[in-house]
Structures are given as structure tokens and as C-alpha cells.
């Protein structure tokens, strides 16, 4: 949408809410993308750190 007049936020960003609901589920430990996830989780890396390696 078009920015309304007079809209302002710190550095143009306004956090308003947060995620409301999540469920605990188990990912199937299969496939290249899971293995990448496991690698990140075990080394406590973020996505962007992982991208750089």
C-alpha cells in the first residue's frame, strides 16, 4: 500500500505486534535441506553466517 501522510517510524520501521502462535513439531531428519539445518543448529550459526561459509 501507499504510505499514508505523516507516517513515521524509527529508521522507517515500526514493530507493532509479534507472532501469535507456534506449535512444537518434529521435522523429518531427511534430505539435504534438513542436513543443512542440523549443521546450522549444531554450530549455532545463522543463515547469513552459513551463507558465507
Amino acid at each position, binding site marked *: 500500500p501507499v504510505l499514508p501522510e505523516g*507516517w513515521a517510524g524509527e529508521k522507517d520501521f515500526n514493530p507493532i*505486534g*509479534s507472532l501469535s*502462535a*507456534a506449535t512444537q*513439531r*518434529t521435522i523429518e531428519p531427511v534430505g*539435504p535441506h*534438513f542436513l543443512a539445518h542440523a549443521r546450522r543448529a*549444531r554450530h549455532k550459526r545463522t543463515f547469513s553466517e552459513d551463507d558465507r561459509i
Partner: protein
Amino acid sequence: MAETGSRPAPGDRTVIGLVFGNSNSSIAYTLDEKAEVIANEDGDRQIPTVLSYVDGDEYYGQQAKAFLVRNPKNTIAYFKEFVGQDFKSIDPTHNHASAHPHDVDGVVSFTVNDKEEAVEPSTLSVSEVTTRYLRRLITAASEYLGKTVTSAVITVPTDFTDKQKAALIKAANDADLEVLQLIAEPVAAILAYDARPEATVEDKIVVVADLGDTRSDVAVVASRGGMYTILATSHDYEFAGCHLDQVLIDHFAKEFIKKHNTTDPRENARSLAKLKLEAESTKKALSLGTNASFSIESLIEGIDFTSTINRLRYEMSARKVFEGINRLIEAVVKKADLDVLDIDEVILSGGTSHTPRIANNLAALFPESTTIVAPATCATAINPSELLARGAALQASLIQEYDAEDIDQSTHPAVSTVKHIANALGVVTLAADDASSESFTPIVPAETAVPARRVARIAGPKNGGDVLIRVVEGGAHIKVTKPEPKQKAETNGAKDEDDSDDSDDDSSDEDDEEEEKREKVWRIGNTVAEAAVRDVKKGSQVEVTLTVNADLSVIVTAREIGGKGGVRGVVKAP
């Protein structure tokens, strides 16, 4: 995951994917990242899970299956389900025509004469039977590959208990096979498709219907960024391949009695065994052609029997089973709290999935947007009998370089059990023609495991200017539009079931025209954050990246494509 035992070093492994089924098993390996299913020395890719002893010689696979007619007592079949089970919890229905399982201190055992004549028959535990059978499979794979197979990934049903898994691993270890990992069957099927070079990783909801011989398993899986989360499963023993065989057995047995006025061939064990084998091959022929023959030499009382059947007649007789499969799939979609409109793909796996009618029925059950991946409905479908083995082989090749401890740690629940967001996360967009109607564009779909990162491009305003990016949660729901004219007197109480029942029938119902229209719509939920991207050029796009962290905090970045700067902000965890 495996118990300690012989564990080869990662460099010395030769790995295969192994499917150990109740009726058939298969083996596969990977060559240059492509999975290939291995044929055994009989030339079979689907190797019957049967073990038979004749004069002290051991037979397995197709050869052993043929001995179900002449040597049923020394032939062991349908034993996979018994691995790791107590005797009192097993269902021996399928074993009536072969060696019967019996109770030895709670352990399921078979008594067969596996030695030369005039020796006491041996009592083998189901674990020992499994070890012997797996050894034959490994030998077949080793001979084909020219080197000794050391390790494998084995597929298991989703309802396999830890006890069953442990027993299977032990039986495999006893056959000198290292089990790298046990993977769930529906996930193996999806991986077989997703690992193809032409496949792209997408966020989608997949239903995997694994239609086997003695059981049918259906699973609803959320495929998110190439990671799979099982949302619901269902297992059924009433609607499977053997029930289709039974339809043909009954059909031809009746025809035989009518023609020759003799004893019912179903009442004689040997005649029934012949009927069963021939019915299965006729069924397979009917999956490929529209006509098939059925012939048995000396069926009963020395009479030969030859007949034919066309596919239409077969589909009519088997209608009950087909409808059962439809209901099974509908039920599991409902169990996952979803609607058929939510399903993006249905993957048919297992031998019974070759049946064209089943795929066609599902195409009618699901909306047109749903892809039914089966040979009858999709040109690029992989042979459904080979899916699991391919998936297992691919997984085996992915992890063969890992140390055993690495595999155990990576597959530990602490790593795999994470939060999945319950609502979709996306941005509010305006329709191109109507600037006042707001709609929701999902970026991170519901049931995505966190941490997750998604990038989406949304169109900027037509005339350029400043853009407000509103990140909101979205909930999908099904909007039912009732047809306006001629309402029937009776109200449709169960609207959900109603129209799907109609689509089961291939004959068009008379109230087809009145069918209510159901569509999936998004409801805009609570706003998570707002960001401004200023001075966007005319007609350009804005790239929005949403990263949901493990603690459910959200990082929002937005920038104009080709532009400089952009905004970045963090929403705190709830």
C-alpha cells in the same frame, strides 16, 4: 541410531537404499547423484519378501514366491510386520497360505524344514528370518555393484515403534549391514521427487498415499524449504492391493464354477494359492493394458482354466476398494485440519498406485490445482514402486560421509523438534485494479519450521512513490458460496463431505449444477510490523525478506529492487 557393532569408517562404506516391505522389497544405489533401483539376479526390481526352503536349499524373492503353491509349509512370507512384535499383538491373516507364525516365549517364530531330508525342522525367530532375507538382498546388491555393501538407509512406516525399529536394526546388523538411518516411508517418496535435478524446492503441502499390498499408509506432509514435517498419518489394512487381488479371485472363481460345475477352487489351498498368484499378475496387466488374460494350468480336479477380463469390468468389481482408498485419503486430510483445497500435491507410491483408476478418482476428489503424481495422471511421475528405494538411496548417499556419531547427533530430536509457526506470515498488498481492496500475500506459509527465511517480490505502486510494507499474519479459510437458484428443501447439513462424495462418482450427478463453490481465501490477521520504503520508482518491485528466528522473533528487510538502502527492523520474540 544404530546399535554398536561393526561400523565401517565413512570412507570404506558402500551404501544402498533398502526398502523392506511386507510383500516386496527393493534395493537402490546412487550414481552421480541419481538414484537407480537394482535388479536382483532374477531380473526383479520388486523382490518379493519371501523365503523358502526346498531340499535344504534357500530361495528368496520370486523363486520363493512360486513355492507358495507346491511348498507352502516351508515358505515364509509376510513377516516384516512381525519384527519386534510380541506374538499376541500380531495379525497372522496373510500367513494362512504359507508357514504359520507361532509363539515361542512371546517371540514370533516359524518352523520350517530348512535342511536336507530326514532332519528335524528348525524353528526360526522372525528376527532370524529377517536377517537371512536381508542377507540375500545385500548379496544381490553387492554382486551388482561389484563390491560388498556395508551400509544402508532403510525405510520404515511412520507407525513403526521404537521396539520395532531396534529389532530391525538388530536383524540388519546380524546380516553384517550397518544401518545408517531409518527414514519414514512418505518422506522417502517425497525426497525421490525433490532430489531430481529439474525439481525446485517449494513450500507445499503434500499428501503421500503409499498403497501397498497388505496395507495402505497415507501421510500429510508440510514441505517447507525442502524440509518435511509430517502433519497427520493414517494406516489401513482394509483397502490395499491384496483386496484388489481378492476381487479378481472371486470373479474368476465364480466364472470357473459356473463353467465347469466343480468344487470351489477357493476351498482348496493349492488352488487358492494358484488363483492368488495369477490374480496378482492379471491385476498388474490391467494397470498397463485395458485387457488381460487369466489362465491357470490344472486349477482344480485337473481342469485348466483360461479367461480374460477388461479393465472396465475390473474397475466396476473393485469399486468398493477404490472408494475406500478415497475415503482414507480424505480422512487424513481432515485429520491434519486441512481441506482438499490446501493440498498442492498428491504423491502416489507403492505397487497398487499403478492402478489408473485410483489416480483418476483422486484427480476428481482434489481441485484442479492439485497435482496428482502418478503414472496415469502425470507424465513425469516416477515408477511408484521405486520411490521409496530411490529416496532411501539418496539419503544414504547424503550421509555416507558422516561419522556414525554425527548422524546420531544430527537426527536427535533436540535438533529436529522445533517450533513451527501456526499462521502464515506475509504482507498486505493491493489489487492492481482496485486500490481500496487489501489482500494478503503469504511469504512464510503456516507450518514452517523456524528458523526460516523467505524472500518475496511484490509490485510497487503503479505511479511510484512511498510504499508501506505491512507485515501481518494470515489465516486461510474455506469460503463456501451456495448456489443462488432453486434451493432444495433439505438443507445440506454436512457441506464439506457433500460435494466431495459427489466427485467420487464418475457418473455425473444430477445436482452437479447446484454444487456449491468452495474456495480458499485469506483473512488478514494481526499486524506484526510496518516499514516504509521511500521513493520507489514507477513500476518497480520491492523485495521483502522475512526471517523468523528460533525464538519467533522476526527480522524484516525491505528494499526496492535496483535501489539503494532499504529498511531493516527486528520484531521481538513474543
